[in-house]
């Protein structure tokens, strides 16, 4: 189990400050939800956490080691990221795409070995893609592409997985499947989510970003309050505890003028 932590992160692009003084910790084995309105800096935070960008200030550590001091390949064996809707420039099959997850484990000329194949099979199976393995990427629906990217990341056999809106494009059945799967796996998960109900129900803890800063962090029941949602989303809500799941559930009433 691996701990991913970030301290005092700052990041700007094109002269615009996107993140400023963000602290985030994903404890070993927990599922941490990253919430926030559009433009709050969720995607930028995930990229910094995955080591895809160097922060302007602050550090990201993986089990205590600063990410930027580790070779990319070593990081890739421990941390995988699922981006939002990546495009392919050539056509490939689902299993070709999932096999890319083995890149950090393979030698330069090594064909896929037994361990590689087993990891690919397992990832296809977990994401329900076994029957689609020979389908071409171009023919996949948005949801199938999303699951293929998740399978690719799982084939990487990481200890930490970072996901940017993994339930985008998925129908409700697959949203539940994917989140249940992420909880069930022995992984440290950091995921951006839009759906507050699902975040409250599946995540151990939530971090809410607003204008590049952490507006709230903690257990879903403590973080998701009427006041917070009004403050950062500009929506009047009623937050209750669902009698069916025991998790907080949000009823949206109306947008407010101030945001």
């Amino acid at each position, binding site marked *: 189990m691996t701990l991913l932590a970030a301290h005092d992160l700052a990041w700007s692009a094109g002269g615009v400050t996107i993140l400023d003084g963000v602290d985030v910790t994903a404890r070993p084995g927990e599922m941490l939800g990253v919430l926030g309105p559009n433009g709050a800096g969720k995607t930028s935070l995930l*990229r910094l956490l*995955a*080591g*895809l960008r160097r922060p302007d200030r602050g550090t990201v550590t993986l089990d205590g080691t600063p990410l930027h001091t580790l*070779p*990319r*390949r*070593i*990081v*890739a*064996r421990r*941390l*995988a*990221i699922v*981006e939002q809707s*990546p*495009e*392919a*420039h*050539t*056509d*490939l*099959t689902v*299993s*070709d*795409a999932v*096999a*890319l*997850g083995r*890149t*950090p484990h*393979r030698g*330069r*000329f090594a*064909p*896929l070995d037994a361990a590689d*194949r087993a990891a*690919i099979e397992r990832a296809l199976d977990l994401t329900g893609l076994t029957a689609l393995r*020979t389908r071409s990427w171009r023919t996949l629906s948005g949801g199938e592409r999303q699951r293929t*990217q998740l399978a690719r990341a799982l084939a*990487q056999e990481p200890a930490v997985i970072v996901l940017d809106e993994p339930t985008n494009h998925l129908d409700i059945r697959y949203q539940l499947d994917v989140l249940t799967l992420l909880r069930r796996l022995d992984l440290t998960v950091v995921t951006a989510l839009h759906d507050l109900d699902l975040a409250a129900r599946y995540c151990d803890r939530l971090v809410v970003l607003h204008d590049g800063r952490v507006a709230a962090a903690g257990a879903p029941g403590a973080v998701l309050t009427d006041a917070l949602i009004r403050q950062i989303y500009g929506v009047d809500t009623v937050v209750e505890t669902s009698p069916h799941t025991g998790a907080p559930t949000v009823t949206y009433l109306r947008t407010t003028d101030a945001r």
Partner: protein
Amino acid sequence: MRSRGAVRRPGRTVRPPVVVVASAAALAVSVVVAAFVGTAQIGPADVLGVMLRHAGLGALAPSPPVPPLIDSLIWESRLPRVLLAATVGAGLSVSGAVLQSVTRNPLAEPYLLGVSSGASTGAVAVMVLGVGAGAVTLSTGAFAGALAAFGIVLLLIGGGRVADPARVVLTGVLVSQFFSAITSLVLMLDGDADATRGFTYWLLGSLSGARWEPLAAAAAVIVPATLICLLYAGALDAFTFGWDTAASLGIDVARARAALMVLAALITAAAVAASGAIGFIGLLVPHVVRLLAGPGHRLLLPLAALVGATFLVWVDTFARSAFTPHEVPVGVITALLGAPAFALVLRKAGRP
């Protein structure tokens, strides 16, 4: 169940090594056959005999010695020409495949990064302006011009740090246009009709000047650069879903991208210096091989090299023998035969 890594297209399941070995065998046969096509009196055994005698293995030769005139035709002219066709065909195909992945653009081809325009300017400088006062060959001028143009492209894209493929492609286009303008200007102001015609012929691509030395010069660049490209097969695959996904898979993206662009440019520059700007093959072959063998570069690159080599050997044989006594620039034929072949493959691939 189908095995992973096999060539997976409807109706066939072939192991990659089998495909590569078969393609290599096809190339070897093509080299020998192409060396005697168009010469009435000799056959494959004579070509093998010539090769073995020159290699000091005359005892193994399958046929009695051929007349000295034929021997010199085969050894001094045909074989270097056929081998240059194979080398250039392999190089351009690998360069095209690499650039299609590095620029994430299926329309990318070897001349995308200004190499052919730069080579033209270099060639014109030697041919028309007499730069180097006879001490510099046309090939050297073209090679230098190609690298100069690519060097400018590389500078403008920050040594490969510019990630946006559209900016990379546009930079290549603008540098190409600039060098083409210089070439035209020189030809307009200084070139007589003969020089212009000679230059146009060179530009279309021709292997008729092939001898052992230019072959050795081209191969000395193309063979090692192609082999180094193979080391990057994993990175080329990882580029499929963009730079961030590639980086998350452990690839040092900026470095791999710069190295691959330099390798592709070196290969292309050497090919153009040896035989002019032979078109279409660098676009066509990677696509055809991808349709047949899938997108994985561990198989795609070696197959593209072998198929591209075989293709150019045959196209050049056609170009030199089909219209005797005329010889048509091979670049004309690559497109003339390649375009319809490509259309057929695309049609077939489009069917469910």
